[in-house]
């Protein structure tokens, strides 16, 4: 009985932590578009999904990459920071954030 309760709680938590099934479907489509190089379409889908699932850190991560593609690095860093606030332990987001930070720093002219 105790085991069953633990199982139910953890599965319940897992279900809560993922986006709603509709958001998941839209976001998944967005990722597929991004993999095809259609970043504007991907960004549009992830924003749609974000309205349905505003606390999904993964969406912020993906939107940050889309912002990088546009060359908007300030926005990208903000989005990565939001993703990290929602899930500070996620290694994927941290890796992306650090790579972007390093890239942005390398863009600063030496003379200034």
């Amino acid at each position: 009985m105790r085991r069953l309760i633990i199982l139910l709680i953890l599965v319940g938590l897992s279900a809560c932590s993922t986006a709603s099934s509709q958001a998941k479907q839209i976001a998944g489509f967005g990722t597929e578009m991004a993999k095809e190089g259609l970043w504007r379409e991907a960004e549009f889908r992830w924003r749609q999904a974000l309205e349905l699932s505003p606390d999904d850190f993964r969406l912020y991560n993906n939107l940050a990459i889309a912002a990088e593609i546009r060359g908007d690095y300030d926005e990208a860093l903000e989005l990565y920071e939001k993703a990290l606030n929602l899930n500070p332990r996620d290694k994927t987001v941290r890796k992306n954030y650090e790579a972007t930070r390093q890239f942005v720093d390398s863009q600063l002219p030496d003379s200034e």
Partner: protein
Amino acid sequence: MKRLDSLLIVSCLILSSALMGSTHRVDLRLPAKAAVSIEEGDRILIAPFVLALAQSDEKPKTVIDVQLELTDYLAKLLRKKKFDIVVDRAIVLPSANLDRLKADTEFWKETITGYNAKYALSGTVDFRVEDRSNYETEEFVSAYDKRTYLRQILVEKTGLALEILLYVIDAEGTVVKELPLKTFMDVEARNYDQLQGFFETIYPMEESILNLFVPHKAKQRRYLFGF
């Protein structure tokens, strides 16, 4: 019992992470600024480079004029990007020692201002052509007794090495960017044409040189979440 509970928790965590979706590696070409602040029409002075061989006692094996070819090449490359390029190979560098050359801000400031340029390019260049022909051992099967033997064959090769240390110096005489570049290649021929070899070894450096002065796309890797 406790052990079983722990196993259950671990299984659930694995399940939940599976529900969170996978990640996908994406290789991007992100918009990047030029390494130095410059605009089309700005003047760049191409000053002489220190020839590495000139510093050593080694007899140069190259028959091409590396100074001429390099400065001409840089001028053509940067003119394509609409910069106003001035080449002056007659400038007498204050030192062949790179540290001293770099530190002589007064010399550079005066030279660059004299040409009304925004930046100057200088540094060092070393182009080496080496005969790398040698004997190598290979197996062959004898037609006579069908046994495998080893034999020595002469492999004719030329080794080409090009090393450039490029300094970008601003109008204040300060080296604002140092770009070390190095290419090495072996070609399957002896006495390979040196001029052709020079351009074949400098070509892979083209993008890095241009990236100093023009906005470009930089290779970056990120990880996307699947859902």
